[in-house]
């Protein structure tokens, strides 16, 4: 439980009970048809579209008094959006929040899937800007719905074909389309394709909420999520030729950080909780460029780009 300072005048978790019930019904339907976008009556929330209105409504609907909430934005727990949403729920629902993936029961995210593997008692809630994966090739909503209904997904490969034709490889790096439960093609929201394997057959429930577009979809636990590809250009994830400058990890998704105005840069874990936990466990990276840090055995951070 939180610190007992829930704001007065609001229902538990801000939304009224009727709205929460209707959204829960939508979520049940979304779970029943993995990857299918279910329309819902999205409400006005006290933050602008694009800041996570869909995710917040899903979280508000499934939140109970005993839940522990973690919110991440770009993998980090300490960015403005993450801090605001955590504070919003600790004030309107008086629940406790955490930055530790292992302690959370509900994790709301936008750009990343936590590096720490999730378990069955956790729910991952995504904030989705554009839920329709076919939108790039087909602007008509009536037509895209029909294409989903009839499993006409050939055009998704047109997009991948274009990537290979122009760049020599599949250059789609985020929101990489995937086939859920061998039936519906789904937008993976702005997570990097690095995270696509991490949403395949995992024990946690995943719910995607798009507030402006008024759609909710879900991936039930242990559901297959297959990234689309070509036989001769198989799906692959990003790799880096160096490790995290702070914790030395070579397995996690790295952000490039520019440290001065002379182009010096370093790579650090995008998942701040993962990075902190590794440092607590005694791991260390080469440190900031120019710093005389221990374990600097790969020539310092610098030139390499994700590829």
């Amino acid at each position, binding site marked *: 439980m939180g610190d007992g300072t829930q704001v007065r005048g609001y229902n538990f978790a801000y939304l009224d009970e009727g709205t929460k019930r209707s959204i829960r019904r939508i979520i049940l339907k979304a779970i029943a048809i993995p990857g299918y976008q279910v329309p819902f009556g999205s409400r006005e929330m006290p933050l602008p579209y694009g800041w996570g209105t869909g995710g917040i409504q899903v979280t508000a609907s499934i939140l109970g008094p005993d839940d522990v909430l973690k919110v991440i934005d770009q993998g980090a727990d300490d960015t403005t959006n993450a801090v605001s949403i955590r504070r919003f729920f600790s004030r309107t629902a008086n629940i406790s929040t955490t930055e530790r993936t292992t302690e959370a029961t509900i994790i709301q995210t936008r750009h990343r899937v936590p590096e720490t593997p999730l378990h069955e008692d956790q729910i991952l809630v995504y904030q989705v800007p554009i839920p329709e994966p076919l939108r790039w*090739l087909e602007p008509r909503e009536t037509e895209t719905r*029909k294409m989903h*209904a*009839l499993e*006409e997904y*050939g*055009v998704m*490969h*047109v997009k991948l*074909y*274009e990537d*290979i*034709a*122009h760049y020599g490889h599949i250059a789609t790096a985020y929101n990489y389309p995937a086939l859920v439960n061998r039936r519906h093609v789904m937008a993976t929201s702005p997570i990097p394709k690095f995270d696509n394997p991490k949403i395949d057959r995992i024990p946690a429930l995943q719910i995607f909420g798009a507030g402006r577009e008024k759609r909710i979809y879900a991936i039930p636990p242990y559901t297959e999520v297959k990234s689309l590809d*070509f*036989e*001769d*250009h198989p799906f692959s994830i990003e790799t880096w030729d160096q490790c995290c400058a702070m914790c030395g990890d070579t397995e996690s998704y790295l952000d490039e950080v520019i440290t001065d105005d002379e182009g010096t840069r370093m790579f650090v874990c995008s998942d701040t909780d993962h990075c902190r936990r590794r440092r607590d466990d005694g791991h260390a990276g080469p440190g900031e460029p120019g710093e005389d840090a221990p374990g600097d055995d790969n020539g310092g951070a610098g030139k390499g780009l994700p590829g």
Partner: protein
Amino acid sequence: MMDLGPPLLSVQGMTKFYGRLVGCRDVGFDLWPGEVLCVVGESGSGKTTLLNCLNGGLEPTSGSIKYETRHEGTVEITTLSEAKRRFLSRTDWGIVYQNPRDGLRMRVSAGANIGERLMAVGARHYGNIRSEAATWLRNIEIDEDRIDDPPSTFSGGMQQRLQIARNLVTKPRLVFMDEPTGGLDVSVQARLLDLLRGLVTELDIAAIIVTHDLAVARLLGHRLMVMQGGRVVESGLTDQVLDDPHHPHTQLLVSAILTP
């Protein structure tokens, strides 16, 4: 007489009303595999309505359209489920629009335009799709180097040829064309007609071509249907109809041809 087997397409009593207005009325014909049927008539005579009813773009008010599929025998198009009709139209059929912008994806490359139908029926090997696209570009006399250029950088004639290639890549058995040479200048028209005639013969494709240009009908059509006010007023072998027109409206159309 040679046994032709069942007709590929058999249309009976097909009528389309737009409210009180008549689109086309009581149209009936049979089309055999490999046959090219031209539909001519003045503007507003119901040619395009007829074509759209046949290819599933419009629902006819009454009548029957029977199509002989490759694997499932004869199906009735008017009662076929939308899923199956859409599958037919991207595998067994081709639709070539008058304006190539209606039939092409203008923002993706020529190669992807040709490859789209292959991917829609399950091709998942990039190399194979690309080499098939290159083959088709050669077939339609477009330089292979243009494979990664979007159609918006092509001339009108090239766009129209690309649209034809995009439709023929899955080797359809029936192609619907609405004024395929409209909007092209005469020399480009001649080249396109030449190409079309070659491809249709080579691949043994049946085609229904709507045109108001009797020269196109003369060059491509085995048979001809003349429409006026939504009805078919005369039909027969192309040469027969054009050289010896019986119906006054056909006589009018034939006598209206300008000879330089």
